[in-house]
């Protein structure tokens, strides 16, 4: 009996947004009479943090504290069109739409402030704490609340903005496949260490180290949520999951969370992550989107680690103990490769 350890790696990129573009999203931003802002979207938050990341983008663009912004999602009567929450498009597409809407709203807010302070708009700046003041003269200042009141009740202005973001649709050449699939890509490299039981084919995760390049990390805690949870799903895809355990034979499909195998809280391993930020030229504050690609590098890294540990190639997902054991037996036993 032997438990053999091995390390494997993988590297990859991932396109941001719907392939070929043509997937618009819109946003509306408006202020209430006391300078608190609402972002109206029809975009969905299914856990990825859509509400939170668009809230930060809006606050940054307006120059107000994040507490002064609330994001209202997914009502088709109040939220303008959004293509949907998929294809790693939320941060990039919706974020850009919110940024455009916030920019327009900020323009009105600054004009209203200029009128109140009797200065030129160009001389004003926001302090991000809810005040607008004359550059170099912080004492000549007005709160966003007072600006909103003035705009609403004296100046008759609406502090609001509309935004849309659209990557124009690309054609695809039928003969060569020439196309413009995406405007930016996230990147990753991941190292997985596993322990393989050469008598049972069981594979246990030992640890993972990874580097992800995601454009600007708008909120590191949200990025961490995606990368940690996504890597767990990657382990699950690699070693456990499928509704057709005997594919292409469709029989014996799992019916519940007991039969549908996923790693339990006792199967997880340490995972150290480095995040690189190369801003996307067309991303909101350079952001791309970590949502989808985070699971992908784990699968091949594990397969390659298993080869390093016992010398068998696992070319079919999921890599079950049965597949590993059959391969080891076919090879006449484990053949550990050079330790890495």
């Amino acid at each position, binding site marked *: 009996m032997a438990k053999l350890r091995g390390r494997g790696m993988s590297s990859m990129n991932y396109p941001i947004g719907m392939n070929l573009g043509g997937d618009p999203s819109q946003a509306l931003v408006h202020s209430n009479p006391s300078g608190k802002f609402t972002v109206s979207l029809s975009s969905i938050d299914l856990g990825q943090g859509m509400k939170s990341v668009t809230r930060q983008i809006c606050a940054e663009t307006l120059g107000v504290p994040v507490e002064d912004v609330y994001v209202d999602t997914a009502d088709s009567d109040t939220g303008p069109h959004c293509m949907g*929450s998929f294809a790693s498009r939320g941060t990039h597409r919706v974020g850009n739409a919110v940024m455009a809407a916030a920019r327009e709203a900020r323009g009105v807010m600054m004009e209203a402030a200029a009128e109140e302070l009797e200065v030129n708009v160009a001389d004003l700046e926001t302090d991000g704490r809810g005040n607008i003041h004359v550059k170099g003269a912080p004492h000549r200042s007005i709160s966003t609340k007072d600006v909103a009141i003035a705009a609403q009740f004296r100046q008759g202005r609406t502090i609001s903005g509309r935004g849309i973001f659209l990557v124009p649709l690309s054609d695809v050449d039928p003969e060569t496949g020439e*196309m*413009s699939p995406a405007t*930016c890509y996230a990147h990753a*490299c991941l190292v997985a260490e596993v322990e393989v039981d050469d008598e049972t084919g069981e594979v246990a995760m030992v640890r993972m180290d990874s580097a992800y390049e995601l454009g600007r990390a708008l909120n590191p805690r949200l990025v961490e949520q995606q990368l940690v949870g996504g890597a767990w799903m990657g382990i699950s*895809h690699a070693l456990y999951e499928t509704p057709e355990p005997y594919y292409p034979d469709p029989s014996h499909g799992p019916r519940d969370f007991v039969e549908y195998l996923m790693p339990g809280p006792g199967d997880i391993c340490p995972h150290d992550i*480095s995040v690189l930020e190369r801003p996307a*030229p067309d991303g909101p504050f350079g952001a791309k989107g970590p949502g989808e*690609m985070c699971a992908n590098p784990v*699968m091949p890294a594990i397969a390659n680690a298993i080869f390093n540990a016992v010398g068998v190639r696992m070319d079919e997902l999921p890599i079950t103990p049965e597949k590993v054991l059959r391969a080891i037996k076919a090879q006449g036993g484990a053949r550990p490769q050079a330790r890495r």
Partner: protein
Amino acid sequence: MLELRKDIFADERDDNLKEIGKPTQRQDMLGHVTATSVYFNDHKLQGMLHLKVLRSPHSHARIRRIDLSEAERSPGVRRIIRGADVPRNLNTLLSLINFGKDDEPTLAVDKVRYKGEPIVAVVAESQREAFEALAKIRVDYEPLPTVFDVEEAMKPGAPVINETYPKNTFTYHDIYDHQKIRFGDVERGFAAADHILEQRYQMSPIEHAPTETNGSIAAPDTNGRYVVYTSTQALFFSLDTCAKILDVPSNKLHFIGGTVGGGFGGKVDTVTEPLAILGAMLTGRPVRYMIGREEEMLYCAPRGAERIFIKDGVSRDGRILARQFRCLFDSGAYTRLSSYAVVKCAAHLPGPYTIPNVYAEVYCVFTNRVPATAMRGFGVTAVDFAIECQMDKLADLVGMDPMEFRLVNAYRDGDMKAHRREAKNTALIECVQVAAEKAKWRIRDDFKRMSSLKDVGAPRAVVPAPAPAREAILVSRPAGQQRTVYDRPAPPSPEPIRPPPPPPPAQPAAAPSHGAIRFSSVFGGRRR
């Protein structure tokens, strides 16, 4: 543990922002921990009815007769819905963006094409009464031959699963049964290679398994509208799909969602909303249609299986000279979104590496299984698994460290990709370097000095000369027959396993490239 490497690409960023880059608490976190976040199923409506569907026990069968007489008399039943009651009982999701033909009924009428396909919906006062009525429905089936393997499905004479696509493959550009990538000349590349490696990879289907199952509640609203609480991942996508299937103006529908118990791609297909709304229309009462867990596991769309064949030519010094793909997407019985994933897959090839000769054919194949749909990493996950396993084998073949092998072939700013666009804003090299450092994986200094911004352009920036007019052949090898050739590639097998496609018809100069995937706005009418 997560660290931000601010030292890398620092000159491309302004890090002095007030809100961006801060670890701000989630706007929805308080709602989550106090269990007050409102999901679709947390809406309680007066007099709510419950909808359940009868699912096919067969993977492929003709429906001879449906007898509802006993079920209609079953206690608590308020309405039984058949295919004939659905205003437009044929749809394909991407018809909203003008891509593909309508090929899937909301409720099966003449034929079932996968086990679990909905045939009849029962709307009753309680779930129990709906279940009891379902048990009283009698359906007379004539079982048909089935096919579950993508390569079997593509063989001449295979059972026709989805009559909309009689060859069991989706149609691209109105003329081809697959999406092509042609870049340089792979045969030239193979001829120049020191090693050829030809391998087969397979990913089984994967279920999204969100903790909240798919579902929706539809209710008659004031002034003749219908309000719909839904778990959809794409509010307007679902709204417009329902407007089309139910043949009502979109402003008759008021969709509310936005807080969803996990999706991962599994809540785009809009399987519950049309029936819930139709139930509300036919009964005048609120109707809830929530998928059960066993239904979700067995009969709701998973991430589709993919079979991938890769043939690589590599030089002794570790440069990949040619890479050829044949990818078969198992779409199940209907198109859903697999047709789109195929094009995304083609665009992704040959992975984040600069290879002068690339050839690919990617197919969307129909089989008698549950239709596949989008999932996290859609179109890319399985092919990245295949490519990265292949990269590891190639490194082994040429005796290189796998990290260094990737660095040698990594794409950089200014390189020409196989889809004929220049690479920009790349960072693969830096990710590999940082991961190696983090994992204490030793790579040589000259590899540590490489950069996505250095040694770019030049020969790597041009579109190479095309191949002479011939179809390169990639033999589909059965599992367990992986092949490595250490000298010259074997000559292509005489018989192509697919007949060569017909030449493209001549196009009027003005027209857009025929059938090029053309997205109208989601509100746009259909063009074909």
